[in-house]
C-alpha cells in the first residue's frame, strides 16, 4: 500500500462556545463538513461533475477549489463509471475521496464500481483492503424533472452488504454525518435530497460528529412511532404537529443512516408506543420500509397493538406533470391518515 508523504494534521481547535449555533442551509452545512475535513486531512479530495469552479449544481462544494486547489477539487467528464471507479482505486491506496454523483439516478451508471468493487473489496482481500470512499449524491422528487432525475433509490444500496447508507434530513445531521462518513473506512453512499438543500436549521459553531448508526428522535411522543428519513422527516413532523391538535402524540424517529440501522432506538420507541407507521418516499415494492417492518414484527411482535402501516411512493416511474408527480409520493394527508389508522386500529 501507499506510504503517503502527507500526514494528517491535528483537528482544528474548537472555536467559540460549544453552545454557539448558527442558522445554516443544508447545503452550507455540507459545505462546512467538506471544508473542515479537507483542512484536517490532506488525503480527502473531491471529484464530480461541475463541482470545482462552479461549486456543483447544488452549491455544496462552493469555494472549495479556491481554498484547496484544483488537485483536490476536480471536475470530471460525464463518466460516472470511471470517476466512481477512480474513487474506489484512490480509496484503496490511501486517499479519502468524496465523489459527487449529481443525481442518484446517474449512480446506475456506476453500479459496478459501487456494488462489485467498493462493497466487496474488504471481504475479498481477506480484510486487508479498505475502501474509505464517500459517494455523495441526491435523490427524490418534487421539482418536476421527471422519471430519470427524481428517484429514491436507497433500497438498491441498502440491499448490498458492504455499503453504508446515510440519508440526512436536517443541516445539523447532514454536517455531522458527512464528517463521520469521510472518516469511516467503509464505502458510504450519502444520499441528500434535492428539496432539502435550501432548508435551514441550527448548526453548532464548534466541531462535532454524528456516529453512523445512531437514530434521532425528531419529536418525542407517546401514542405512535413514526419512522421516516430524508425529506419524509419534515413532512412527517408537519403531520405530527397536525395530530397533536387532536390529542395524538406522535414520536418521529429518524434513523439518519439506513445502514447501519439503529434497531435498538427504533424498537425502544415501538415498545413504548405500540403503534408504528413507516414513511418512505421510495416506491413501496422492495423498499427499506418493508424491511424495517419485518424487523419490528420479528423483534417486537408482542408489543404491537395494530398492524404496521407503511406509507410509500406508488410503484411507478415518476411522471412529469406536477400534480401527477405529487400523487406518486406520500403527502402530509396520507401520513395523517395512516397515523390515525394505526392509532385507532389498536
Amino acid at each position, binding site marked *: 500500500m501507499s506510504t503517503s508523504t502527507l500526514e494528517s494534521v491535528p483537528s482544528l481547535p474548537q472555536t467559540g462556545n460549544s453552545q454557539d449555533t448558527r442558522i445554516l442551509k443544508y447545503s452550507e452545512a455540507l459545505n462546512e463538513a467538506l471544508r473542515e475535513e479537507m483542512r484536517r486531512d490532506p488525503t480527502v479530495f473531491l471529484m464530480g461533475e461541475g463541482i470545482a469552479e462552479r461549486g456543483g449544481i447544488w452549491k455544496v462544494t462552493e469555494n472549495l477549489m479556491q481554498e484547496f486547489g484544483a488537485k483536490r477539487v476536480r471536475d470530471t467528464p460525464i463518466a460516472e463509471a470511471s470517476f466512481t471507479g477512480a474513487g474506489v*482505486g484512490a480509496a484503496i491506496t490511501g486517499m479519502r475521496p468524496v465523489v459527487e454523483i449529481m443525481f442518484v439516478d446517474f449512480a446506475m451508471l456506476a453500479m459496478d464500481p459501487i456494488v462489485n468493487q467498493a462493497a466487496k473489496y474488504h471481504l475479498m482481500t481477506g480484510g486487508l*483492503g479498505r475502501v474509505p470512499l464517500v459517494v455523495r449524491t441526491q435523490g427524490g422528487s418534487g421539482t418536476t424533472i421527471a422519471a430519470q432525475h427524481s428517484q429514491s433509490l436507497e433500497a438498491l444500496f441498502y440491499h448490498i452488504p458492504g455499503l453504508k447508507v446515510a440519508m440526512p434530513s436536517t443541516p445539523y445531521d447532514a454536517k455531522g454525518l458527512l464528517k463521520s462518513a469521510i472518516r469511516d473506512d467503509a464505502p458510504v453512499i450519502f444520499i441528500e435530497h434535492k428539496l432539502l438543500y435550501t432548508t435551514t436549521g441550527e448548526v453548532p459553531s464548534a466541531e462535532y460528529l454524528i456516529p453512523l448508526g445512531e437514530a434521532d428522535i425528531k419529536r418525542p411522543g407517546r401514542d405512535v412511532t413514526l419512522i421516516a428519513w430524508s425529506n419524509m422527516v419534515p413532512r412527517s413532523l408537519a403531520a405530527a404537529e397536525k395530530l397533536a391538535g387532536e390529542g395524538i402524540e406522535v414520536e418521529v424517529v429518524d434513523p439518519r443512516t439506513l445502514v447501519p440501522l439503529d434497531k435498538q432506538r427504533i424498537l425502544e420507541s415501538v415498545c413504548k408506543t405500540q403503534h408504528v407507521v413507516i414513511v418512505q418516499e421510495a416506491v413501496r415494492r422492495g423498499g427499506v420500509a418493508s424491511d424495517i417492518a419485518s424487523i419490528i414484527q420479528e423483534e417486537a411482535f408482542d408489543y404491537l397493538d395494530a398492524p404496521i402501516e407503511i406509507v410509500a411512493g406508488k410503484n411507478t416511474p415518476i411522471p412529469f406533470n406536477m400534480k401527477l408527480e405529487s400523487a406518486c409520493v406520500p403527502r402530509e394527508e396520507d401520513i395523517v391518515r395512516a397515523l390515525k389508522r394505526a392509532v385507532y386500529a389498536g
Partner: protein
Amino acid sequence: MHTKEFLAGTYKTLLTIRLFETRAIQLYRQGLVRGYFHPYLGEEAIGTGVCAALKPRDYIVSTHRGHGHCIARGAEIGKMFAELFGRATGYCAGRGGSMHIADVTAGNLGANGIVGGGISLGVGAALGTSIRGEDQVTAVFLSDGASNNGVFCESMNLAAIWNLPLILVIENNQYAVSTPIEQSTREPELYKRGPAYGVTSSTVDGNHVLEVYERACEAVSQCRAGKGPVLMEAKTYRHAGHHVNDPGLYMPKESLEYYKSKDPVVLGRKLLIEEGGAAQEEAKAIETAVEQEVEAAVEFAKRSPEPSVEEFLESIEACQ
C-alpha cells in the same frame, strides 16, 4: 544487452508462472482447487516483462486471469496455492479465491471477476499518487475483451486529461471468452485507440519477455517524468480455452501451433542461454529450484487449515 542475472530472473518468473498454473490445473482436476480458474498459460511474458520494469512502490491492477501478475509481482506461491484451495493462510484468507487474489501490502491491488472492472481502479490509484505528488506508477492489466467495455474508454480519457502515471497494458489474446477479436471490433489493432485520446500507444510481441520489458521501461519512464499515461498492447494467445474447463475447440489449430512455437517460457530459456551466455546446467538449476518451490508451496497449502466458520460469522455479526 541484459545481464545473465536479469535474464535468469525473468526466466525464473516465466517458469514459476508456467509450473504454478500447470500444477494448479492438476490440483483442480483432483478437486483441491475449486471455483473459476483462468490460466495464464501462454501469456507469461507480459506480466513478467511489465512487472520487471516496476519498482516495489508501484501498483498493479490485475484481471480474472491474474495468477501470472501475482507471481510476477513477487507473491509467495504457497499463499497463492492456499488461496486457490480456500485456506485460511491464503492471500485473502480463503475469502477471495482465484478471481479476487490480491496482495495489497505489495501493491497488487487485486484480480477482478468483472472484465474491465479494475481499469478505473487503476486510474484512481494513479490519481492518488498524482495528488500526493509521488512518483509511483500504476500498471493496469486488461484483456482485449475488456477493451470493448465502455469503462476502458472512459478510464483512458480520465488518465489523459489528468496526465496520470498510468500504464494500460492490453493483453490481447485475441479472444473474449470464446468470441474471436474480429467479431468484437472492426479495428483489431487495439493500440490504435490510444492516439484518439491523446495517449502514447504502441503494440509489442507479448510472447517476447524482453520486448515487453523494454517497452514497459519506456512507459514507466514517461509516467515517472510526469508525461502522462501510456497504452501498450501486447499481442499473445492462450494455450487453451478461457477457463480450465473450456477445451477451446473454437481456437484454430494453426493459430495455436503458431503461438506454441513462440512459447514465451521456451523463448525465455533461449534468451538466458544465447543472450545471457548461461550454461545449460544453469538453466537446469533454475528448473529444479522452481519445481521444488512449487512442490513445497503445494505442501504448504495442503497442510494449511480451512478458515473457521465461527470466526467468519463473528466477523460479520455487526452487519446483521
